[in-house]
């Protein structure tokens, strides 16, 4: 399928019950799609709802209305409507996510954190660890850290673990939430080339990149989220 991700007429608001039911509209009428081999970058000022869109796609946020259609195992799944079990299956097999921060689990070593998505798909442990090692090496994470739990790593080290974990699978869709925010120039370059490789494999990517240089390097097109902002509608 050439377009594995289609977002159609999605609305999202938060109702803050602890603040007398204050209703905060986040995005209105979001429509876009991402094709295979394409990297779409979400643009617009901070607070406009870029991260919220990624979280809706990944199932962390519920949506008020609309569809999030994902090509998943020979069928099309609406992430906004399916049961949790299907969302988890989509995450396991179809849609990867590189968050800004690593959610560490106590006592699990960096290399196992990276290998885990492959293990979850039934890949042999040795093979998964080999692949994890190759990725960590590529991202210049010092070898002596591999067998340590990443809880005590620096921000940049944690982020590289996170990127390796996100890139280890052959997911057809990847969501990238500022994967280069805490990286130095050399490692940013590594990530840019990793994204290029994924593109060549036909992976559809949707990302947020504040670093202009990286954005220029990876973006096939920039989607201005301001267009979906309810505040814009008020201002207009």
């Amino acid at each position: 399928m050439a377009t594995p991700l289609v977002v159609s007429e999605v609305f999202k608001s938060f109702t803050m019950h602890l603040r007398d039911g204050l209703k905060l509209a986040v995005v209105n009428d979001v429509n876009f799609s991402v094709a295979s081999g394409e990297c779409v970058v979400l643009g617009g000022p901070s607070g406009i709802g870029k991260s919220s869109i990624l979280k809706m796609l990944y199932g962390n946020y519920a949506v008020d209305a609309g569809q999030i259609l994902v090509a998943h195992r020979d069928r099309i799944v609406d992430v906004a409507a399916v049961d949790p079990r299907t969302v988890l299956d989509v995450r396991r097999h179809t849609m990867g996510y590189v968050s800004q921060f690593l959610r560490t689990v106590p006592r699990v070593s960096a290399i196992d954190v990276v290998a885990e998505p492959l293990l979850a798909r039934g890949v042999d442990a040795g093979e998964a660890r080999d692949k994890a090692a190759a990725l960590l090496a590529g991202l210049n994470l010092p070898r002596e850290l591999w067998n340590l739990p990443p809880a005590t790593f620096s921000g940049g080290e944690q982020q590289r673990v996170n990127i390796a974990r996100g890139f280890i699978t052959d997911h057809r869709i990847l969501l990238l939430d500022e994967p280069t925010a805490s990286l130095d120039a050399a490692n940013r370059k590594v990530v840019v080339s990793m994204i290029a490789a994924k593109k060549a494999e036909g992976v559809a990517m949707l990302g947020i990149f504040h670093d202009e240089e990286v954005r220029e390097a990876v973006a096939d097109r920039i989607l201005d989220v301001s267009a979906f902002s309810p505040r814009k509608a008020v201002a207009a």
Partner: protein
Amino acid sequence: MNDTPLFKVSGVSKFYGQRIGCKDVSFDLWPGEVLAIVGESGSGKTTLLNCLSTRLMPTAGSVEYRMRDGQFRDLYHMSEAERRFLMRTDWGFVHQNPADGLRMTVSAGANVGERLMAIGDRHYGNIRATATDWLSRVEISTDRIDDQPRAFSGGMRQRLQIARNLVTGPRLVFMDEPTGGLDVSVQARLLDLVRGLVNDLGLSAIVVTHDLAVARLLSHRMMVMKDGYVIEQGLTDRVLDDPREPYTQLLVSSILQV
């Protein structure tokens, strides 16, 4: 994805006289899935867990379980003998207080081996070897095999209770506040252990907890209970990142940040 649930709950209610214990709870649980039931004390989560695990007869509703032969059986219409057999072979129950789930005056090895002996294992050497293996899997030094759990710390006791439950290879484990009453560092170790075992063994689990961090770490899906009702349920990430109900928002916003 396996398309047959392991456990089907429909319309389970329990009343204590006029008072509601839990009301009209329905859900399916699939193999390998971990469901967290969260809520504060008195919300009905333990009542529900006891109904689901047949430790308590509900006032209404049914629970069906897919037996190893693939047939669904209504738990509340099984004979007591069948139910008890199920509970000590295909199920586990981890109590908050390990003393409730362990025999405190027999050795760790016998605690682990009891289920094996209950299903007819009559070879001492094999029982002991299996017990030794399980103690190391739950990170209890195997030279403690002949010590009684009375001599164990709280965290060790809880790990022993887990080994005792898992030794027969159950497919469904109920846990009632498994980390309650433990120090934070001990909690983390236990959670990690449980998470690893659940993944490795492909267990299904229903975990009652008031601790949202436990739910986040262990569960795929969660149900929030209040006053006996399930007020919100869904993917664990979704419920915690985007809580919809006022009470859930209150719970989530009450988590202390370190």
